[in-house]
Each structure stands twice: as structure tokens, then as C-alpha cells.
């Protein structure tokens, strides 16, 4: 796998001092075969066919109602693709995808148990580095957005000095960032979660595309991710609870 220039001098926080939280419910799968990118492109919202070795991209598998099956990060490792997603959604994702492989050259291996995933947050990643990843020893660090990086480490080799996940959640509330299992669930479509940037408007058809294209063209997205006052918002609408502010997906 190619080694790209490290983004901040080193992969790990001894240098950057940025907060990192463990993603205890993340999944990691390895996808092999010459048809993998075309296959994923045909079933998910983002255009992934142009992904190159050393790059990552996020995309969302949706069902026929455009509801989220899983939002995943694809790492192009050269010989294969590694996909990071949400473990509670993995079974449904594999059921959704594996029955559609038919004669295409695609095989999937679950490597979740061999690895640990972490999220580094409150970063200031350069725009040019978003979508790039680099590896150092047993660790791979990829910039999934301007303020978050995903770290994948082989079991027992991850960063130390981790933050409590609640700190990450509070940061998400402050920055209105949706997350797996909270906002990113099968109850919502990508627009409701604030994941518009993962829905490519010019790519070909995929399951759920007609609904998302119609929402986009009509400008009607129904419920939207919002910061709300914890005390006054209807509790059942809250997706991530904070002390004073929370995240909720509500009709605006």
C-alpha cells in the first residue's frame, strides 16, 4: 500500500494533542475483486468509481425508501478496498449487498475483530488533505472531513489517552455533526441527517436515488438535523442528548 506524506508530521496525538475517542461499535470489512468499486457505486449515494489508491471516500447505502442502511468510509488500499461502517448495521448491509453480487468479481471479509477504530476530532485538516489517508506501522489515519479523522489500528496498537465518547458527542452537538447510531440510522434518509455532501447529484442510478433526486430538485427534505434546546425540545425527537443543547431531526 502506498505511503502518503503524513498530514501533521505524525499519525498520533503525542504531536497533535487532538482529542481521540474509541469507536467501539465500528465495523471493518475488506472487499476484493475487480468489480468492487463499480458494485458499491451501483448501490450507494456517492460516486466512488474514481477512487484511487491512497484515497478514501464516504458513501451511503440506502434502501428503496432512501433510508440509510449504513454510511461507510472506503479506503482504497491498492489491491483491495477496506470499508469502515457501523457494526450494528453490518448484518443488514451484508445481506443487502451479498445477494446482489451475482456474477460480479466481489468478495467480502469481515476484519472487524482484527482492528480497532478511533475518531480524532476538532482537527483543522487542509481541504487538499480531505479524502487522503496515510499509514504508519499498524495504524492508518484518514481525513474524512475538515474537522475529523478516522484512525484504524490493528488490535492493541491504537492510540492511548482517549477521550470519553461523551466528550465527542458534546463536540458533535456543538458542531451539528451526525453520527452512526444516533442520527445516521435506518429511520432517516441522508438529507435529514445533514449528509448532503455524500449524495452525488450527477451519478447514475442506485437504490433510493429517485427519492433523493426528487427531494433535491423540489427542495423539500422534510425533517432536518438541528441543534435544539434540550429542555424545550420534545424528548422523542432528540437523537443526541446534551446538557443544554442537543441534536434532533425535526421538521423545520
Amino acid at each position, binding site marked *: 500500500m502506498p505511503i502518503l506524506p503524513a498530514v501533521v508530521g505524525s499519525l498520533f496525538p503525542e504531536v497533535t494533542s487532538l482529542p481521540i475517542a474509541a469507536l467501539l461499535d465500528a465495523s471493518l470489512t475488506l472487499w476484493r475483486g475487480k468489480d468492487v468499486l463499480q458494485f458499491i457505486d451501483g448501490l450507494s449515494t456517492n460516486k466512488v468509481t474514481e477512487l484511487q489508491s491512497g484515497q478514501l471516500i464516504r458513501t451511503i447505502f440506502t434502501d428503496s425508501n432512501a433510508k440509510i442502511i449504513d454510511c461507510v468510509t472506503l479506503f482504497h488500499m491498492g489491491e483491495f478496498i477496506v470499508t469502515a461502517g457501523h457494526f450494528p448495521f453490518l448484518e443488514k448491509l451484508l445481506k443487502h449487498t451479498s445477494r446482489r453480487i451475482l456474477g460480479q468479481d466481489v468478495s467480502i471479509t*469481515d*476484519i472487524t475483530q*482484527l*482492528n480497532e477504530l478511533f475518531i480524532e476530532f476538532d482537527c483543522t485538516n487542509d481541504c487538499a488533505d480531505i479524502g487522503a489517508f496515510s499509514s504508519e506501522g499498524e495504524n*492508518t489515519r484518514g481525513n474524512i472531513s475538515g474537522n475529523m479523522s478516522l484512525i484504524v489500528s490493528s488490535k492493541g496498537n491504537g492510540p492511548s489517552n482517549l477521550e470519553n465518547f461523551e466528550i465527542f458527542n458534546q463536540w458533535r452537538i456543538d458542531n451539528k455533526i451526525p453520527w452512526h447510531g444516533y442520527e445516521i440510522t435506518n429511520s432517516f434518509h441522508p438529507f435529514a441527517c445533514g449528509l448532503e455532501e455524500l449524495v452525488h447529484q450527477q451519478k447514475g*442510478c442506485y437504490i433510493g436515488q429517485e427519492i433523493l433526486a426528487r427531494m433535491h430538485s423540489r427542495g423539500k427534505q422534510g425533517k432536518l438535523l438541528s441543534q435544539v434546546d434540550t429542555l424545550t425540545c420534545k424528548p422523542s425527537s432528540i437523537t443526541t442528548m446534551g446538557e443544554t443543547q442537543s441534536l434532533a431531526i425535526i421538521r423545520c
Partner: protein
Amino acid sequence: MDCGTCDSADPVQMVKPEVIDVNLTISDMAKNMLADAFGDDRSHALLVGVLSGGCSGYMYDLQIVESTDQDCQELSVDGFRVLVPKASSHLLDGIEIDYVEKLMGGGFKINNPNADSSCGCGESFS
């Protein structure tokens, strides 16, 4: 990252659909169009396959080929060689290959009794 290159991780078990003997028909209109396309050379075959993708999850894949590396059933239908990949046989049994003329251009159309739904353009089904 540990990618399991020492085979320490097991592959996910894929759903392997049952391979069935496919029966399909070709409408008169489609036969005429295929006859034009093939000409007198019947050494080529019509490959009728299914790919993942499209608005409904599966897309038809029609090609005229000399041969294919896919594992196929070979049928002879009204004098035409037809190849159907075994991996898609459960989705294609009983189909009718039709040809429709439209003001915006005609094309082959698959009438598929196995499809629960299809998208507006008719290329995709589930």
C-alpha cells in the same frame, strides 16, 4: 490496520442463489431486431445478464458476444444462441425479450415475471 492477509479472517458467506434451468421467449418484434443485428452470422450469441445497481437494485445487461468468461447456460431460442449467466438464472427464468418503438427511440425491453417492481426507464428491477 490488520487486513487479515494471513487468512486469519473468514470470508463473509455469500448468498448463493439456486441455479435453475432458464426458459425465455423472444417476441416477434425483438426477433426482427435481433435478426437485423446478427445478420447471417449466427456464431455470436445474445448474452442476457443481470448486474447489481440501478434504481431498483438489479439492472439488465444485454450484449451480443462471441464468447464470455461468465459461467452460462446456453439456450437456442428461435434460431438465436442465448447465453444466461448461471448466477442470474433465478432472476431471468420466464422472461420475455421484447422490443418497443417509442418517439424518443426504441429499445429492447424485458418483461420479467420475477420482478416485484421496476423503475420508470425499465432497465432496473427488484
